[in-house]
């Protein structure tokens, strides 16, 4: 390309880019337009794309279940707060009536501000930072537990595990990833654990590690040296894999790994990468309800759209994202208008029964802060290569195994 041609091309691109923002807002339609903001590229691409699967199948399922037409407007936040913010503005200008997103707490907070300013309802699918629903927002709603609720549920399930298996671990070593989520969880654990009589074990050491760490030799050596009965772990995915391998190399076999609530252990890649080593890890975390009607319906749609994927590995992301869109559609059905204010009022009145939601928890009802309180966690254990619900008993698909069979008392 000659320089002149190049300059012309550049000018043409400039014009296209310059005109794009002034796109004319389309005429109001009978459909509810849902703007879905997820990190489909950048560092959080993995989870963003997993959540997107839940959004993609939502319109068809919701038409079938509620008889309501919705149209998705997808936007990629690129794992970047600036982009999240401008994309949210763009979706609103393009005529989105409701926003759904956006997994990362920082990006979600940026989108929430835009939504509040414009008076467009924002339903959060996944984001645990408690601060987001503490700002006095009128248009921001969250059907996901805060880090505090997540920890409380996770520790309660831990007690349940020990009770059902009749085990009494005396000590634990607590390892957690030192990022936004890991630190919030660690704070919760640190604050609650001493007051919980049903968890009598002692935490011998707390080891925080770098989320970008590519080598966890020291961390595992330190943990092993404490000689703790079990490992309490708050992790992400890649570090969890490195950590589990390192445990094998260092021949450390504690009673088990229990997470009070984090991603990582139940994910597809964990099982794929580790094979038999992935077995018996337990994660007490938000999950989808394996016994709900909605899970069956969504599950069927999921298998049709993603024949290569297993629902178990995407269920939580799919479930919470689907439910967020479901909340919007349900409000639209009752409000019979796309007027944002009326939609927000309708969302506030939401009362979706357990059979109509996919994620695990009680009926979806928002408190005055716009937060759903009754969301539950489940103890998910990797059994035969599949993340399986083992507790609470009413949703259990199998019995919890603890200590893991490889455990030898030292």
């Amino acid at each position, binding site marked *: 390309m000659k320089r002149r041609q190049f300059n012309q091309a550049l000018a043409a691109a400039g014009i*296209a880019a310059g005109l794009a923002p002034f796109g004319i807002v389309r005429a109001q339609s009978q459909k509810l337009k849902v703007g879905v903001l997820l990190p489909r590229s950048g560092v959080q691409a993995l989870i963003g794309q997993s959540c997107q699967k839940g959004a993609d199948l939502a319109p068809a399922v919701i038409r079938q279940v509620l008889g309501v037409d919705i149209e998705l407007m997808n936007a990629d936040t690129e794992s970047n707060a600036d982009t999240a913010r401008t*994309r949210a503005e763009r979706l*609103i200008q393009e005529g989105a009536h409701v926003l759904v997103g956006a997994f990362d707490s920082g990006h979600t907070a940026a989108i929430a501000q835009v939504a509040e300013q414009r008076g467009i309802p924002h339903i959060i699918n996944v984001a645990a930072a408690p601060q987001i629903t503490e700002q006095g927002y009128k248009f921001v709603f969250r059907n996901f537990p805060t880090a505090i609720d997540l920890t409380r549920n996770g520790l309660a399930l831990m007690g349940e595990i020990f009770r059902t298996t009749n085990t009494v671990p005396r000590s634990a070593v607590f390892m957690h990833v030192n990022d936004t989520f890991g630190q919030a969880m660690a704070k919760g654990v640190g604050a609650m654990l001493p007051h919980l009589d049903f968890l009598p074990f002692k935490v011998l050491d707390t080891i925080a590690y770098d989320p970008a760490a590519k080598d966890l030799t020291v961390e595992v050596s330190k943990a092993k040296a404490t000689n703790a009965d079990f490992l309490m772990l708050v992790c992400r995915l890649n570090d969890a894999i490195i950590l589990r391998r390192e445990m094998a190399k260092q021949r450390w076999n504690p009673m088990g790994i229990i997470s009070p609530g984090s991603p990582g252990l139940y994910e597809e890649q964990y099982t794929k990468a580790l094979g038999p080593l992935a077995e018996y890890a337990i994660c007490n975390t938000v999950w989808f309800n394996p016994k709900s009607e909605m899970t069956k319906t969504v599950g069927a749609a999921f298998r049709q759209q993603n024949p290569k994927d297993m629902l178990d590995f995407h269920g939580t992301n799919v479930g919470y994202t689907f439910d967020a869109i479901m909340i919007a559609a349900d409000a639209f059905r009752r409000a019979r208008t796309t007027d944002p204010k009326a939609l927000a009022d309708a969302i506030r009145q939401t009362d979706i029964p357990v059979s109509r939601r996919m994620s695990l928890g009680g009926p979806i009802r928002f408190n005055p802060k716009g937060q759903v309180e009754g969301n539950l966690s489940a103890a998910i254990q990797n059994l035969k290569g599949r993340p399986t619900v083992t507790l609470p008993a009413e949703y259990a698909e199998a019995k919890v195994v603890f200590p893991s069979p490889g455990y030898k008392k030292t």
Partner: protein
Amino acid sequence: MNRRAQTLLALLALALLVLPAFASNYVMSVATLILFFAFTGQAWNVMMGFAGQLSLGHSLYVGVGAYTAAGLFFHYGLGPWAGLWLAILLCVLLGAAIGFLAFRFGISGVYFALLTIAFAEFTRIGFDHIDWLGGPGGLFIKVAQRDQIDLLNFRGPPAMYYYAMLALAAGALALCAWLLRSRAGYYWQAIREDEEAAQALGINTFRWKMLAVILSAAMTAVSGVFFAFYYNNLFPEQIFHISRSIEIILGPIIGGIGTLFGPILGAAVLTLLADGITELMSAFGIEIPGVKQVFYGIVLLVVIMFLPNGIWPTLARRLGIARQR
């Protein structure tokens, strides 16, 4: 600056001043982002474009500035106007310390660039361990809902942030124009072209380089304070990250390093390019994650290969504006 240039500048200023009356909220948010990067790029340009000191760690000053003002607001309810001065002071001290160490120990070129990265990364991990500022959990400052403008606490509608950023960008432009014509500007140019020769001419290169670093740090601190009160939440992982530093410097390099309008043009081109590609992708129904960034990278590559001095010098010639340095 010739007649034509003055007319064009006046028209641009007018257009920017009346923009909020016509533009949608989306355009406003993009425009605010462009001005933010234009201002920050201008700040970086003082150090690199004028004085020839390559900093790849400018996120350090954005972050320290943002955290200082936000921390004071969060803990003591001190508004940004008080925090601003402390933020500037801290960043000036930090910049002075880095500059002093580097220039006294004779570190230049690539080594200086890597030193700036090291300080930014060091600080990022350091902030992960400051509980008082939220650590990796982030610092959330209260988003008070106000439709009217509250300048004291820097709260208000998007137009207020836009005008604030516009004022900052215009102020930086004026400051840089003045600097370039002042003694400092000529000394910097001499240092940038050939430091040893400049020294031989009796220029105290250490002093003038320090001035560039300090000015640049102070200006970047201001953009950090703006960032804190525009976004209202801060995470070390995001604000100190090296990708932030790269974002800051792409604009001036693409626009035209060492020029007055390069940083502004570069910020506009890159932001519009990013959003333009996204729009084009969605118009063609392409939804493969990563495609956008690949195109973005290719455009960067082409510009740097065929327009080594950036877009502005070429554009200025085309527009018939006397070429500015």
